[in-house]
């Protein structure tokens, strides 16, 4: 319990300092939310109230922003985030099959994180590496010319990785 409280205090400090960093910026709501997600991996609900307190922006407006833009998440993600590009070239090259192969191997459904909190697979809009289609990113690192076989191997490797 104590530990949990200490952790949440720390998170609040982080949120406060992020808001402060954008203090003199006009229309700062989105950059603030982006920085919080960069820091925490997602946007906890209480962050919306905290930002609201500090900036005077309505928390309902903040919620509206978070749910409008596809970049924002209200739930934590796994240690390894795999993004499957669903641009046109990737679609033609079989992005759906790659996504299914990844999910099948990881034993999860798209957009969800498994109970072990290790892997999240999500669809994203075009990553702009069309000539290497189909493309995925693994914690930001791009892998091109994917096949279902490579997808299976990748998940195997991730599962073998020791936890932090």
């Amino acid at each position, binding site marked *: 319990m104590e530990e949990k409280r200490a952790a949440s205090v720390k998170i609040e400090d982080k949120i406060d300092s992020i808001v402060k960093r954008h203090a003199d910026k*006009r*229309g700062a*709501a989105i950059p603030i939310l982006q920085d919080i997600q960069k820091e925490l991996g997602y946007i906890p609900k209480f962050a919306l109230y905290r930002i609201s307190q500090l900036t005077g922006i309505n928390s309902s407006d903040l919620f509206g922003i978070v749910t409008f833009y596809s970049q924002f998440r209200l739930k934590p993600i796994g240690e390894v985030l795999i993004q499957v590009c*669903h641009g046109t*070239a990737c679609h*033609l090259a079989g992005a759906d099959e790659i996504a299914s192969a990844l999910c099948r191997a990881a034993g999860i459904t798209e957009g969800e994180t498994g109970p072990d909190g290790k892997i999240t697979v999500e669809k994203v809009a075009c990553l*702009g590496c069309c000539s290497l289609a189909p493309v995925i990113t693994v914690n930001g690192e791009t892998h091109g010319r994917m096949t279902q*076989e490579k997808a299976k191997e990748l998940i195997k490797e991730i599962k073998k990785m020791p936890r932090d």
Partner: protein
Amino acid sequence: MYLKTIKVGLASCGIAAGASKVFDYLESNLPKEKTKLMKTGCIGMCFKEPLVEINDETGTFIYGSVDVKKAERIVKEHILQGNPIKEWIVYSSTFETEESKYLKKQHRILLKNSGKIDPENINSYLEAGGYKGLEKAVAMTPADVILEIEKAGLRGRGGAGFPTHIKWKLTREAHGTPKYIICNADEGDPGAFMDRSVLESDPHSVLEGMAIAAYAIGAEKGYVYIRAEYPLAIKRLRIAIEQARKKGFLGKGIFNGNFTFDVEIREGAGAFVCGEETALMASIEGHRGMPRFKPPFPAQKGLWGKPTCINNVETLAAAARILSEGADVFSSCGTEKSKGTKIFALAGKVKRGGLIEVPMGTTIREIVFDIGGGISTQKAFKAVQTGGPSGGCIPASMADITVDYEALKSAGAIMGSGGLIVMDEDTCMVDVARFFLKFTTSESCGKCTFCRIGTYQMLKILDRICSGQGEPGDLERLQDLGEKIIKGSLCGLGQTAPNPVLTTLKYFREEYEAHVYEKRCPAGKCIELIEYRISAEKCIGCGLCAKKCPANAVEGEKNHPYRINIKKCIKCGICSETCRFDAVETVSKGMPAGLNGGEGSSWRQ
């Protein structure tokens, strides 16, 4: 001993293909006294990434598909002994290669520096004549700058093709201060990567173009609104802004005059509709990106109610070139109404995909066959899709159409920002239309009823058609809904969302009819209308597919032909991907074995 310059293409595509490892290898293994190693942006031949270019007194040589192992031999034989390894060279100034045709038909004005300079070093841009355009501009009157852009005939490269000089003039003449210039780098079209490449390879040209535009319209502050999905472009742009500030190309008293200008980056948060200018401004202001009614136009009431000019990345880069090299460079090529060149992101089922720049008026056929080298698969060329989800599909029979704003529009497609996706006979046009509509449906901001509900209903109909549940009257309903959505939507997203469906209905109607009336997918793509079979004649009984099948649906024993248990099959296609003997065939669901088997395209009567 002469000096060799070695450049490694380190844009996103190159890095994804493994160029960083090659660069690291070269960095520690090149003889430092005889060579100069450079990072550069997109060399353009994406189909051969990673690319390494070697320049010396004997000429230019570009190596393709380089990995560390190849790099080892290149260092040893070419760099140290002076013997180029011809079979790996994709382009050379001294001899012809098959791939060099890719560059031959292009005309590189905007991409002049791309893959030549170091994007993270301002001196590299200055050596290539950088910021000369801005220097010239600030010595002219703003009206003369706008006149120069008018003479060049520059039209907006974001898709709609609005004359740039009119936009600048309107913003200049509008009352109210401060004024703003915004660079629209929210390149959300799936299948387009021109803006990303320009920003990753030549970021200063965009900053220079922005500064010129700011001077012309009387703005002191600019924003670059860029997709968060482009981390490398953002990083290089940040570096470029820092360097430009230090050198005095941004900030107070630029070129010792009265002109003051600075730039701020705003990262888009993943909403396609923010490519629309009023939605983009709402997003910068910190709101949901929802378009509003025009007028008032941004030139009158834009960001925070002030006069604002919004230009696309490519437009601004073009403005920098026009000012530095003169309007003629631009206006001397292109067609009567569409001047200059256009960058396309050539991708899909084409042999040589990549970033290309061609004069306006080039035909689709020239792009696909002369530059792209034709279709990458064994199948026939079927169509190209331009303009992403706002554009349309142009069938192979119309491939002699030229790329200019008017010609593409008359075909029902649009120029768009420049995504050009090539499709072969294995591509199901109904599925393609559904793909784009799925995208626009989820990206509709929800403001206009027709766009919000209409696209959803169209998608439902397409889902039905693709799963074999299509009904008579569906095609007419699609047409009717599509036309109404165009009329009933406020912004470009809704007004163009039906285009992919309407153009495919126009040019590929028989394919829709096959889905609706015969419940078959001629291209063999729609999962619910197909089955996988193993040809008993072709199967040698190696059992590889059975081993790889994730659903244990392939049954049989070694050295005898295998079979697929349809009840277990999840149609992932891994068997067909793994079979080395082409024994796995895609057939229409419910067809007796041996009938109508074989490849998708052969079913077309």
